[in-house]
């Protein structure tokens, strides 16, 4: 029997505001515990929350970028549950009247395009952080309490782990491009909940689903989906029923397990938040936000193909994240060779980033430095091989390429006489190669060029060296 996977996702995205959703505490990540709190986010009695205007703006922007309808009227609600990461014993969220509804995101997997429906986007506050470091209790850090989030909820339109990942990555790119969030995965700025069920191919009714919460990387997402779908198929083939439940994904062990901690059916008893007044958004406001939306990844990719004449592959890689696209565009402004810049960004830079265990966000060189380096290569001051060496040195020292070339004496030999002398000697020392060339074996040229590059420590201009080798060999054969 063939099974089909049905996946729906909830994506939590931390908004890039300076302050929390209902108070003026900063949202900075990684601060000392409980130093970014006030009576409002500590849940003291008698305090009054006031909504951050940027939260409304960012949520509207997110909604428009994901092709949603923006609600003229929406409101905040209380979602009640007891957990120590929530000092108020309720989370302020949105229930029946979310700020955005009915969007769509197009994804492409294996050349097939597909629309993924967005059910809704609502705004809510993040909870605190529990630390399990104490011997006889749990420690609570409230800094994160009240950090603004949007929760993006999809229709059950995804059919594979690959589709889920592609969709999640696309949403991340759009959120990053629009400045809604910095989308720093390692800081938990984006978390995924996945609902998975299986059904026989051809059947339209949905199977019983399980949910896995708080997956915090694309790798965890893809592995959790693969594992859970396999587990469900095995259960179904044994004739067992799937139990609707929340399961915990253990990314280290690579398994999901039931959270059967006497979990009663959730009863959140939502009701309208009496401390916050409704949000009314006028058409003019929506139009203004729409006008201010930056170029989105899809449009940018097309522009790179049209304007910079880049292959589709290059355009896709460069626009995959906003930081890479910005780096590329700045470099192109300074050095008008898009394909060259693209090659270096796609081929030479990634291994250096990997070596330093960083991403494009923290790249230690500026676009202007890459542009300068490529100019040096183009003007034959250094050859491509030396260029790579210089780039590595730039990563390590932050120095400018010109400086490094001087320090390391990497400038190509422009003195033809010196090069000629070296080549004369090499040709004289390798009579066998000359003989081979005489019998028509052109490969021997490569061998000689290699010798020359070695002797000059890569500083010879390969074209010039090649020309001289041919002349000298011809003389010897002559």
């Amino acid at each position, binding site marked *: 029997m063939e099974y089909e996977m049905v996946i729906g996702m909830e994506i939590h995205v931390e908004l890039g505001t*300076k302050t929390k959703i209902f108070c*003026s*505490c900063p949202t900075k990540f990684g601060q000392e515990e*409980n130093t970014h709190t006030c009576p409002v986010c500590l849940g003291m009695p008698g305090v009054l929350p*006031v909504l951050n205007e*940027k939260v409304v703006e960012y949520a509207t922007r997110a909604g428009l970028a994901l092709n949603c309808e923006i609600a003229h009227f929406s409101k905040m609600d209380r979602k*009640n549950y007891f957990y120590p990461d929530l000092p108020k014993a309720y989370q302020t969220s949105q229930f029946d009247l979310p700020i955005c509804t009915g969007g769509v995101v197009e994804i492409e997997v294996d050349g097939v395009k597909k629309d993924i429906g967005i059910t809704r986007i609502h705004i809510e506050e993040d909870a605190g952080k*529990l630390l399990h470091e104490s011997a006889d209790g749990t*420690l609570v850090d409230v800094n994160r309490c009240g950090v603004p989030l949007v929760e993006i909820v999809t229709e059950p339109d995804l059919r594979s782990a690959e589709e889920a990942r592609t969709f999640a990555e696309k949403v991340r790119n759009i959120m990053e491009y629009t400045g809604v969030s910095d989308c720093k995965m390692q800081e938990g700025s984006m978390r995924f909940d996945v609902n998975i069920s299986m059904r026989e191919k051809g059947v339209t009714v949905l199977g019983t689903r399980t949910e896995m919460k708080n997956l915090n990387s694309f790798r965890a997402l893809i592995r959790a989906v693969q594992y859970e779908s396999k587990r469900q198929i095995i259960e179904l083939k044994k004739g067992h029923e799937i139990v609707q439940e929340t399961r915990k994904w253990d990314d280290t062990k690579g398994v999901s397990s039931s959270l059967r901690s006497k979990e009663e059916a959730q009863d959140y008893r939502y009701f309208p938040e009496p401390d916050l007044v409704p949000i009314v958004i006028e058409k003019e406001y929506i139009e203004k936000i729409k006008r201010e939306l930056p170029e989105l990844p899809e449009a940018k990719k097309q522009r790179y193909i049209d304007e910079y004449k880049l292959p589709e592959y290059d355009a896709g890689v460069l626009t995959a994240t906003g930081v890479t696209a910005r780096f590329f565009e700045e470099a192109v402004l300074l050095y008008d060779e898009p394909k060259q810049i693209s090659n270096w960004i796609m081929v030479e830079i990634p291994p250096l980033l990997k070596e330093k265990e960083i991403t494009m966000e923290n790249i230690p060189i500026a676009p202007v430095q890459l542009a300068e380096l490529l100019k040096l290569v183009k003007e034959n001051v250094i050859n491509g091989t030396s260029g790579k060496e210089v780039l590595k040195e730039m990563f390590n020292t932050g120095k400018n390429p010109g400086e490094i070339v001087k320090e390391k004496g990497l400038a190509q030999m422009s003195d033809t006489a010196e090069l000629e002398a070296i080549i004369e000697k090499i040709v004289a020392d390798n009579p066998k190669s000359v003989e081979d060339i005489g019998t028509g074996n052109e490969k021997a040229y490569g061998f000689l060029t290699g010798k020359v590059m070695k002797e000059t420590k890569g500083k010879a201009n390969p074209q010039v060296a090649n020309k001289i080798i041919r002349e000298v060999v011809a003389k010897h054969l002559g």
Partner: protein
Amino acid sequence: MSLTREDVTYVANLARLEFTPDEVTALIDKMGAVLDYAETLSELDTSTVKATEHVLAVQNVFREDVPKPCLSNEQALANAPESEAGCFKVPRVME
């Protein structure tokens, strides 16, 4: 309105309240009386009345996104029954 023991213990559990069996028995009637009183409202025909989202006729009360000083760690923890390492301390939560 007649409530069952299960109704009372369910609500008690949501509120994290613990009752003896006798207290639960007493609450069946007491809570029932409260609900009966609220039930009076159902006599009104509200089919043409819009749901009340908020009691005030006010909307769009916003704050500028400008950081202000926070409480110090000591101030934040001042009311905490227990604290450790700059954090609030609560009974152990199993994850």
